[in-house]
């Protein structure tokens, strides 16, 4: 196999030459494989774009010229569906194009026209094709299917979505949770107790987005979910609580401040401030000394947000201590948020102030600075 002149070389060199040749062949084969795959994928993408064009033109010209489903004569509907059905059965590319086009229409349109899209989607059996993707060994395909199920509001696939909440892949499970929320499943928040893996920030935002898009969703009392062991779930619950102003959870949130978790405490303190939780003021002042600087700053800001007046003395004392730039800034901002009392407090403390303190006071006297506009 080796050229003749190599056989006269020592064994070690011969071995090296063979190994180098094998490595070279493997590298070449990999490059060819990647290249062929890319060309195939690009071709598939082009075909999908062409197929999508045929599909959306067809839907726009024949279906979406009507405003409601009932406007379409049954005979015409039957004819159009038969034609689309032939298209669907003609190739995998058309099946994918049909699903993706309908999802895109659903994302852009609202009102009675959505009924037409949903009816066509179901009568063409596209929901079954989407559900069949849940059996794929590729996780991204399963996640895509769940996303399409939720976008098409396909409640007939609810059982399959529930099964997907047990998937071994976290991204697939999160998509399944989001789909359950969008489909308004009765136990759609059970995952808050059952999920043991940490959710990423992206997962949390995705779930929050699903909640905001769901219609007629009944939000539960999140107090119990705040006590679970999964830190990321608590973090998600805090985001939901703040977004939907769930004031009934404030006592539980105050109780959690003693768990000595810096990151969670930071989020809880911020949330209590945003919820204007006056009942949390004493607890916040109590934990202040034992918290790290970032959390101390957040406590001052939260007290500023609450601005009940009961903590102005505490905030002013922190301002006068002038321990760090961050705390000085937060204390001044918190003082400034006590708008009516701010002027007198600033006056009382204006003697013997450092230039840094005076500058900070001047800065927050400007309302646009206070609200972060400048």
């Amino acid at each position: 196999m080796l050229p003749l002149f190599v056989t006269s070389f020592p064994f070690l060199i011969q071995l090296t030459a063979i190994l180098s040749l094998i490595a070279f062949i493997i590298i070449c084969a990999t490059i060819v494989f990647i290249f062929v795959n890319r060309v195939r994928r690009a071709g598939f993408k082009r075909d999908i774009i062409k197929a999508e064009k045929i599909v959306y033109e067809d839907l726009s010209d024949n279906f979406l010229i009507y405003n409601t489903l009932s406007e379409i004569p049954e005979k015409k509907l039957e004819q159009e569906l038969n034609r689309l059905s032939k298209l669907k059965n003609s190739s995998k590319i058309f099946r994918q194009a049909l699903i993706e086009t309908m999802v895109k229409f659903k994302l852009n349109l609202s009102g009675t026209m959505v009924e037409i899209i949903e009816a066509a989607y179901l009568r063409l059996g596209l929901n079954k094709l989407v559900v069949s993707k849940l059996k794929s060994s590729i996780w991204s395909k399963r996640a895509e299917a769940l996303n399409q199920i939720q976008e098409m509001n396909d409640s007939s696939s609810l059982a399959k979505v529930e099964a997907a909440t047990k998937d071994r892949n976290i991204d697939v499970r999160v998509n399944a949770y989001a789909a359950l929320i969008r489909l308004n499943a009765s136990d759609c928040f059970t995952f808050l107790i059952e999920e043991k893996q940490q959710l990423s920030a992206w997962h949390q935002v995705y779930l929050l987005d699903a909640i905001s898009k769901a219609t007629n969703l009944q939000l539960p009392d999140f107090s119990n979910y705040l006590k679970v062991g999964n830190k990321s779930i608590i973090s998600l619950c805090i985001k939901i609580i703040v977004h939907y102003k769930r004031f009934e959870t404030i006592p539980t949130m105050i109780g959690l401040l003693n768990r000595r978790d810096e990151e969670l405490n930071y989020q809880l303190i911020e949330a209590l401030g945003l919820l204007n939780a006056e009942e949390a003021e004493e607890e916040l002042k109590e934990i202040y000394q034992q918290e790290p600087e970032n959390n101390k700053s957040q406590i001052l800001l939260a007290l500023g947000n609450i601005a009940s007046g009961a903590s102005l003395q505490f905030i002013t004392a922190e301002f006068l201590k002038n321990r760090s730039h961050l705390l000085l800034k937060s204390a001044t901002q918190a003082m400034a948020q006590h708008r009516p009392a701010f002027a007198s407090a600033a006056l009382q403390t204006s003697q013997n102030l450092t230039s840094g303190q005076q500058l900070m006071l001047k800065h927050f006297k400007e309302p646009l600075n206070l609200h972060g506009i400048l």
Partner: protein
Amino acid sequence: MKKEILIIEDEKIVSYFLETRLKKDDFGVEVALDGQEAMRKIHHKKYDLILTDMMIPNISGLELIMKIKRSGLNLKTPILVLSSLSSADLIVDVLSSGVNDYITKPFSIKVLMAKIHQLLDAPVSVTN
């Protein structure tokens, strides 16, 4: 005479659908898929209405609106924004930049058509 509408929208599904619907209602329709194409059309023809997305290639939505408002031919053309961006601050910014109305996606075609008819029939107000 047909009223002329320019649709500026990069999502082909949406632009084709709007084009079909508006033509069905006897409007003259032209489509621009990006900022450059939109500016070319705006500089060469006077439209009765411009229907635009806020996120289009090659130009930011607000910049496009400013350019339309400064263009000679379409200085007084009403602008209707159709966008998936629904932040209240952005809508205020867009409306104060001289846009006549704003519709968020997903949109109802009935509402959109009503707004288009309203803008085409109503006297045009110019914001400097």
